[in-house]
């Protein structure tokens, strides 16, 4: 019996708090924060047709004569995935994960909203409510509020300059700056200053709780980043600055602080209107550290990677045809990436219709045949073991589930 129909056959209400199956029991009671979710957002609309390229489609190189990736086996050519799609060669570090079936893609996916504005499309992807601009919170913040288990201040974390829209809301979340300063001591760690402020906030009716939560979250992060590397294969070799370094830091934080469960990182620089290059060039230079960072994250999470799902997404795709400047313009459908132990990997999922002229949306870009929320909902349902009731609190107005979409193993 499918979990869904089993749930549906029960009376609505009390039944939903009954954990279903052994995994659900383990995740909700013994160790409620064991299952992790990391979301990586590529701001600026990455060119998904050159990340997972339909190299065997005869239309592909016709649409992209100068920026298209070559066939697998040619110099600077794509890495073969399934005989039809090829992976960008700058992502070669992800090839082992594909072979281990811990990496999957969902092509022609994205937001059903037709906007080609970066601003609006990112907003929709973070609020989880395409077409509605005034949703006050982000879907990851709503997710924190419905996850089983007691919440701690550092349960949800983002790495970046400001707290992102996706984590805005009523649940506590921690924002760390990128780079080396990510988890350094703050003024309250200086004994005289810490003592003075502890005294002022102790017993303060309005602010004591928030003050103490702040100190505890900081201590959790600091302890986790200073803690010893447990069973680290390569002993934490230094990495280049940027995403690989932040990814290593994130892996360390998550391993050392088991209460940390959700993380978000945003990376920019994908708006390749001009000179994006093919196997080499601008896009390749952006993809290489991303691929390296994801490989580092998978490796350094160690056994925890099996309980982790990493989602990489971007607000919309780019035009199927290259433009006059050797770049691509704002499009619609894109490719989502999924990594982790529970991912139905080694497969390009989704309803793929090719890149022939008739298959293109408005004659210019990929249609969205899989709503990004269907993918995220399945991750929440099968990986984080959320009930239907809670799912509908995270993604209101969800479209009907895409038939046959199985991006997570059951």
């Amino acid at each position, binding site marked *: 019996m499918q979990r869904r129909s089993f749930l549906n056959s029960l009376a609505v209400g009390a039944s939903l708090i009954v954990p279903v199956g052994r995994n659900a029991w383990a995740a909700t009671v013994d160790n409620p924060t064991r299952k992790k979710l990391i979301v990586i957002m590529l701001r600026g609309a990455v060119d998904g047709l050159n990340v997972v390229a339909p190299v065997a489609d005869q239309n592909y190189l016709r649409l992209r004569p100068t920026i298209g990736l070559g066939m697998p086996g040619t110099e600077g050519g794509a890495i073969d995935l399934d005989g039809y799609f090829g992976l960008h060669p700058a992502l070669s570090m992800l090839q082992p994960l594909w072979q281990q079936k811990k990496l999957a893609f969902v092509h022609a996916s994205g937001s059903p909203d037709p906007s080609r504005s970066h601003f609006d499309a990112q907003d929709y992807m973070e609020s989880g409510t395409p077409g509605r601009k005034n949703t006050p919170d982000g879907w990851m913040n709503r997710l924190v509020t419905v996850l089983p288990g007691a919440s701690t201040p550092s349960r949800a974390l983002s790495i970046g*300059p400001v707290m992102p829209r996706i984590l805005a809301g009523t649940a506590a979340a921690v*924002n760390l700056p990128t780079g080396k300063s990510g988890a350094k001591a703050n003024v309250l760690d200086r004994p005289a200053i810490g003592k003075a402020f502890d005294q002022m906030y102790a017993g303060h009716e309005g602010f004591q709780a928030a003050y103490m939560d702040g100190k505890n979250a900081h201590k959790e992060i600091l302890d986790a980043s200073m803690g010893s590397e447990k069973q680290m294969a390569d002993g934490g070799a230094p990495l280049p600055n940027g995403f690989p370094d932040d990814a290593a830091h994130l892996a360390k934080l998550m391993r050392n602080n088991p209460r940390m469960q959700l993380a978000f990182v945003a990376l920019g620089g994908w708006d390749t209107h001009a000179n994006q290059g093919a196997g080499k060039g601008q896009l390749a230079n952006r993809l290489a550290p991303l691929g390296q960072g994801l490989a580092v994250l998978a490796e350094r999470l160690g056994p925890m990677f099996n309980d982790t799902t990493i989602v990489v997404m971007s607000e919309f795709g780019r035009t199927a045809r290259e433009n006059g400047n050797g770049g691509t313009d704002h499009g619609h459908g894109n490719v989502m990436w999924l990594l982790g132990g529970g991912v139905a990997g080694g497969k390009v999922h989704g309803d793929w219709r090719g890149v022939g002229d008739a298959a293109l949306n408005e004659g210019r870009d990929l249609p969205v045949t899989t709503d990004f929320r269907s993918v995220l909902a399945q991750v929440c349902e099968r990986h984080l073991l959320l009930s239907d009731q809670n799912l509908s609190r995270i993604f209101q107005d969800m479209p009907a589930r895409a038939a046959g979409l199985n991006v997570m193993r059951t």
Partner: protein
Amino acid sequence: MYRLRNSIFTIGVLLFAIVPAHAAPLSMEQQAVHVLNRLANGPKPGDIDRVVKMGVQRYIDTQLNPQSLLYPPALTERLAALDSPNRSAGEVAGKFIEARKDVREQEEGATQRRREVLGAITRDTADARLLRAIDSPRQLEEVMVDFWFNHFNVHSSKGIDRALIASYERDAIRPYVFGSFRDMLGATAKHPAMLYYLDNQASTAPGFVPGKKRMQADAAPVQPKGLNENYARELMELHTLGVDGGYTQKDVTELARMLTGWTYNPRALVLRNQTFVFADERHDHGVKQWLGRTVPDQGQAEGEMALDVLAQHPATARHLGFKLAQYFVQDQPPPALVDRLARSYLDSKGDIRTVLRTLFASAEFMAPEAIGAKFKTPYQYVVSAMRASGAPVSNTGPLLNTMSQLGMPLYGCQTPDGYKNTKAAWLNPDALTRRITFATALGSGKLPLASPAIDAGQLQATLGGSISGRTLTMVAANPEPLRAAMLLGSPDFMQR
């Protein structure tokens, strides 16, 4: 000296020991502190004495009619030296579009140039706001600019809006903050920053096909494709009636149809600073049914009529009354006060100054339970700290960074509802630690603002009765170099 300061601390402690914080009526000093915390962004050195001497009522009257208050010469000079805020919307938009075009055409060094152009626009726009917020004697005007900008929020990261925000605040918000709400509603409705932010510029009659004279793609990446309801929805939900204002989705669609053709032409904006155009060929000429009335085809007049109706609607009066009472009195404002403000609004035909006068004269505003009841937003916290420190602001960079870290980047609210001003929105575990970090850096003179460490004795005098006896005792027990940081990072200074 040390001894003198010590005795000042002692007097502070004694005063607060004998005056229970919540006893009525409020002392003159308590009233002065209160109006400086609500009608102004907190006291500057000497402000409390000045307000006590001139009288709280006269202070309120002067702030409501601030024509006689002149900017200090240093502020006037700083503002005059800014670029974007002293140029028309079209000029700044032209620069912005030019910089972007050069990058697309891959001119040498264009990316670097674009970064510089955008950076200068952003910096000058922020300076025009922050320098006034800190140093303008017309403090209520600045408080109202903050309030109304959030009410009619637009976001600077959405395309060309970065270039248009200086004009939006200067031309569509600032002139109207004490005036007629209908005028401000019209000014925001017709400003390209709003037209672009909420997509009305791209909203057309269903099936409209742009002719050969296409809109310049540069500034309008959303090609007109049909009806866009975004602005119409927010116009009713956020700007006027409120979410429970009794309208339906059908009313949203019909209002959107009435507003089709309200747009701007990027070329005319850049060449002639024409910030608004009614494009008749995009207008939906059918008959509409909106809020229970039949609206025949009248072109632009349909939208004007809609703004008239919305501005005079009782639901709008209640919605604005609630928001003003929440901003100035308490997060959960007393319903009787909201009622009175709504009545004042309707009686005065939406005159904002009249409503504010009603608010400031209310018993609820001056009630003991209202004192210090509001948790400062990050913007209010940073601005009030700068005012209290008395330090000249040589560089707004560290202030803007702090606001961003605190989750409130200036002009950076993505959603059209603007930043909230409630404790629930801003009191979180991260917030206090980050505020204390800022307070410590400012107090010890370590912010790159070229200011020396702040004299704690003077700071304490500036803040007067807004700091409790309990806090003053603890401050006095700590060494001098920590005291200014403790005052600025105290629980008392987090509130207003």
